[in-house]
């Protein structure tokens, strides 16, 4: 008969130095002489930088004062932001109607939030977006349903920034896909045309295109015809972004294996059917993450319209800072704008990373 051991060895806990906070610190901060020195130096640097910054930004700061009162404060003067928040965000949009751009932006955020779930990626989403963009345009422009009409020259601040990036990307995407297909085309003239366009646009800075839209574009039009300045900048942004999207999509097209084309051909599909039913759905899915990074840079690049004197978020902020009452508080104001941009870009880039994980998870079975 088997005899079970009566004596239990006492359950031992792992040594204190290997688990918990101490163990973690030992493994991650002080594993080796070099790393220990590095950690201590970094901690010292943080100690020198972070507490003074917190003191400046939060403890000694003021939030609701006049510009004059700010001059006697040692901390940050966030009043420059809060006292002018409506001008910074909405610019010259009529003061009483500013709920309209606000509502339009909330609608946009709502739509973006709704579309980030991949379960909602159906044909219906396209119609929802078209309807949403139409309602946003209506809210901004007015002139219907008892809303007073607002000239597009008065559109400014954050709505303008968002408008330029959202419409820029929506219009640039199909154009980019066409350019990418053109670049892969077997027809020499089409291919040559698309290569020349893509390489030329990608070779020059966006600012030269914006200058072109501001100065040369009016010369292209017949006499008497003028196009709104915002629309001209929008066209420049679309033409610029399309070239970058074309390169991303081309990457996706090149990643398609030959078999896909051959299978489509053997089924008797013609070029358009092959592209629309077989190649593009797969190729565009692969390039979703890099497309999101194009969206991020398009969003950041809209800030360049400041240089051709459009009143986007950055320009309204600068005009507040040009007011003698608020002169000299630019770090605070720019930090605020930077946080807005950071919020937008960071949520997009973390979404792109999540998407990348999900999409690749489907392939690594």
């Amino acid at each position: 008969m088997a005899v079970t051991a009566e004596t239990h060895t006492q359950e031992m806990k792992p040594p204190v130095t290997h688990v918990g906070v101490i163990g973690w610190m030992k493994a991650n901060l002080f594993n080796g002489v070099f790393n220990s020195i590095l950690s201590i130096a970094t901690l010292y640097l943080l100690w020198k930088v972070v507490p003074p910054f917190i003191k400046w930004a939060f403890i000694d700061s003021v939030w609701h004062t006049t510009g004059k009162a700010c001059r006697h404060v040692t901390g940050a003067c966030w009043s420059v932001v809060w006292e002018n928040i409506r001008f910074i965000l909405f610019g010259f949009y009529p003061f009483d109607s500013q709920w309209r751009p606000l509502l339009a932006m909330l609608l946009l955020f709502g739509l973006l939030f709704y579309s980030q779930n991949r379960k909602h990626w159906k044909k219906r989403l396209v119609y929802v977006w078209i309807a949403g963009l139409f309602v946003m345009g209506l809210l901004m422009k007015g002139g219907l349903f008892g809303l007073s009409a607002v000239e597009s020259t008065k559109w400014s601040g954050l709505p303008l920034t968002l408008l330029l990036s959202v419409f820029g990307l929506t219009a640039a995407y199909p154009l980019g896909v066409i350019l990418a297909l053109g670049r892969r085309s077997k027809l020499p003239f089409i291919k040559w045309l698309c290569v020349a366009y893509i390489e030329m646009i990608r070779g020059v800075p966006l600012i030269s295109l914006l200058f072109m839209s501001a100065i040369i574009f009016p010369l292209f039009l017949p006499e008497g015809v003028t196009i709104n300045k915002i629309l001209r900048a929008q066209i420049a942004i679309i033409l610029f972004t399309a070239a970058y999207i074309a390169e991303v999509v081309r990457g996706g097209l090149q990643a398609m294996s030959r078999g896909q084309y051959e299978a489509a051909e053997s089924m008797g599909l013609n070029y358009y059917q092959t592209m629309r039913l077989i190649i593009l759905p797969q190729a565009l899915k692969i390039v979703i993450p890099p497309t999101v990074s194009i969206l991020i840079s398009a969003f950041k690049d809209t800030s360049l319209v400041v240089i051709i004197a459009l009143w986007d978020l950055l320009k309204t902020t600068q005009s507040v800072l040009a007011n003698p009452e608020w002169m000299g508080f630019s770090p605070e104001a720019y930090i605020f704008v930077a946080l807005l941009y950071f919020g937008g870009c960071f949520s997009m880039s973390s979404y792109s990373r999540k998407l990348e994980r999900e999409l690749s998870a489907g392939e690594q079975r």
Partner: protein
Amino acid sequence: MQKKQPEKIPFWLDPKKRAILFQIVVLGIVGLIGYYLVSNTIFNLRSQSIATGFGFLHKESSFEIGESLIPYSAASSYGRALLVGALNTLEVSFIGIIITLILGTFIGIARLSTNWLVSRLSGIFIEFMQDIPVLLQLFFWYAIFYDSLPSPRQALSPIEGLILSNRGIAFAIPEAHPAHKYMLLFFFVACILTYFIRKWARRRQEQTGKYFPTFRVGLGLIIGFPLIVWLLLGTPTKMDVPKLVGFNFKGGLTLSPEFVALLLGLVLYTSAFVAEVVRAGIQSVSRGQREAAMAIGLRPSLVLNLVILPQALRVIIPPLTSQMLNLTKNSSLAVAIGFPDFVSVANTTINQTGQSIEGIALIMALYLIFSLSTSAFMNWYNKRAALVER
């Protein structure tokens, strides 16, 4: 029996003929649009009596430029003004690229550090710098100089010989001495010598398998040669320290706030992207490569030099060059903070002469030259470095 002649295919069903037809149609449309735009433009230029052609390049510019690498005055021609701008663009891009490469590599490696604190901090740096528009960063740094730093009279001097004020950064440089010329000469001699040593060492290693520590010897030469010259020629240590004279600093080297803000913004923004490129490149070398190299008994430095780096660089170089090109293109934002780069000078020229088409054509041409030469280099490199598979 006679073979039946195949039915003649109508031309709209023949793919070859259809392709030609399609191209002719597209060519026609593009041509028509081009003709329409050009004829409108010519008409508008005539009706607004704007001159055309590049004749303005020889006319007197009559505007001053704040910073110039070559002699320039308001009496110089527009052509010379544009040359000054182009040189300024090259200067800021060149210095920016060097600092960005060093800083970006450093942060990219720090991101992979086993030290939690260092890796997290560089992660935060990368995320913040990538997500804030570079133009906003330029404005921010410029505002720091303009609003937050005191006037030259109350200038800050955190360490001896370095002065911070709203007129820029002034710092001490070694006073001119004949020894410097020779040191520079010997520095170049050492560089050339190192290049040949590297070639020789590589050939010897391929033939005999003997390893020669090229990196250490080369570094020794490059530092040692100028140092010996410096010691032999009487160790000149006198420094040229900036001093306040009137409203400005005399002596030393003064960098304008525009230049520093532009450089700082471009470097911090681009180095975040470079760091990501470097990190991805190093991570792309599979773990097995390192383990295999260690298993055959290579020292850690050799593992890095002979196994990891050659493979990582193949992944790193192409996106790296495109980041360098981005930095050069972004330097055009100088126009927003008033640094006289090419775009800024061209913009002034356009405003004065009204010849916008020529001005913008020049801007585009300059940047196209940059990017086409970069992509030519990339094609050459890719051909050289491409992985030759069995």
